[in-house]
């Protein structure tokens, strides 16, 4: 039976533009591990449907922007590239962190691997020091914002779009930093419950980190000359004016990115009220006793 044209076109769209075994391994590995963990957890300990969906949606989005034809468009259209980075640095990791997946993922690991490999590795000194350093209250937001500014520096953006390895490093650095940042920021625990930074200070950090992004997004969006000529030099994916493309890209960097930070603040406020409610209930119970 012949395959209809639009089905073939959609399949071609979903096929990897430049296949990366590493992206496939990470996204599929995370999904499989999580699914296995869910199956092995007792029914009462499983996270709700919302958190499960958040986890799978986060990785699906990451896979989509890194491996389908979306990646081709990202290489040849500035505003699509900005949406790709919005997913890699904000939306995808945000959803994954919202799912608080670590207990499920740990349960998904074969027992020998968890106890023999991951736990010792996680508790090893260099790992702990490295993690604490990257998740320091000052280092984490500076790294988060710094990476955006770094890759958007025109003299760095040019070679990154021209060289395939540098392009990979750029996208991976955004994804890994996004996962670190949102895991740190959206931790539901308070400082006394073991979070690295308290809920209140994190609200200030989230708001503070959104300001430079609004600045750079607005600066690009409102610029009246071409800042990123690499897209003209290499050709755009479809006919669109260079400045129009650039303005759209600036808007994507400015508004949805800022909104993700506001959403983060809302999530933290919800955690805070929850923690507060628990503390009150605890002290009331103590008084009663």
């Amino acid at each position, binding site marked *: 039976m012949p395959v209809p044209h639009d089905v073939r076109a959609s399949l071609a769209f979903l096929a990897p*533009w*430049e296949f990366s075994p590493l992206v496939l391994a990470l996204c599929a590995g995370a999904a499989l591990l999580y699914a296995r963990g869910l199956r092995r957890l007792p029914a009462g300990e499983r996270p709700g449907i919302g958190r499960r969906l958040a986890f799978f949606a986060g990785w699906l989005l990451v896979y989509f922007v890194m491996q389908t034809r979306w990646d*081709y468009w990202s*290489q*040849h259209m500035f505003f699509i590239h900005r949406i790709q980075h919005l997913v890699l640095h904000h939306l995808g990791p945000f959803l994954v962190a919202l799912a608080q997946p670590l207990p499920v993922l740990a349960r998904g690991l074969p027992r020998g691997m968890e106890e023999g490999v991951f736990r010792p590795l996680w508790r090893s000194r260099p*790992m702990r020091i*490295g*993690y604490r350093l*990257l998740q320091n209250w000052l280092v984490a937001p500076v790294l988060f914002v710094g990476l955006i500014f770094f890759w958007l520096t025109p*003299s*760095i953006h*040019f*070679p*990154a*779009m*021209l*060289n*395939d390895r*540098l392009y990979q*490093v*750029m996208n*991976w*650095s955004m994804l*890994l930093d996004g996962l670190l940042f949102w895991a740190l920021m959206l931790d539901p625990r308070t400082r006394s419950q073991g979070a690295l930074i308290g809920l209140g200070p994190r609200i200030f950090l989230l708001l503070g980190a959104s300001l430079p992004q609004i600045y750079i997004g607005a600066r690009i969006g409102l610029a009246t000359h071409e800042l990123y*000529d690499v897209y*003209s*030099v*290499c*050709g*755009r*994916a*479809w*006919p669109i004016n260079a400045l129009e493309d650039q303005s759209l890209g600036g808007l994507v960097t400015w508004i949805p990115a800022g909104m993700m930070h506001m959403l983060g603040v809302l999530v933290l406020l919800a955690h805070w009220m929850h923690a507060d409610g628990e503390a009150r209930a605890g002290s009331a119970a103590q008084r009663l006793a």
Partner: protein
Amino acid sequence: MKLFLAALGACLALAACAKGDGKWRTKDVDGLVRPLEFELTDDAGRQVNAQDYRGKTVLLYFGYTSCPDECPTTMSKLALALKQTRNRGAGDVVLFVTVDPQRDSATRLRQYTRAFGPRFVGLRGTPQELVALSKRYRISYSYGEPDKDGDYEVMHSTGVFVFDGTGRSRLLVLPNDSADAIAADLDRIAG
């Protein structure tokens, strides 16, 4: 994490390299773009590949013969630049790859490239060969809607990739670079 930081360090270094030492007058992209490699058909109908042009400085440009302004401007500038080099372009070849093989027959391509001089060669590929090449050089092209006569515009890259005799990428000539600048840099590559 260490790997991540190492990678970050590596790109800082690369970015520093990409800026070059300031002596080049067109864009220095030494080793940044993948080495010259392709399988195409030339305007005489011969199957050719990158090996056939080893030993020459290759200027690789993507365009189409019905292009109203961009391509003729760039091609004339390249022709002028070749005349200004020390050995008048003897060691150079301009490969003009058409991104519109449907309209650009071998004959049409040959007529077009010959008009710019003997160092100009037109190349055509099957859609698959063209896609492979565009992936390798990270360039894009797209077709506009045909008008009532069936004519359509093609959006394409504007840069000219320059490779040395070993096929290593050296320069990217941008639309604003002058013929003088191109000639000076070609002489510098020739040594």
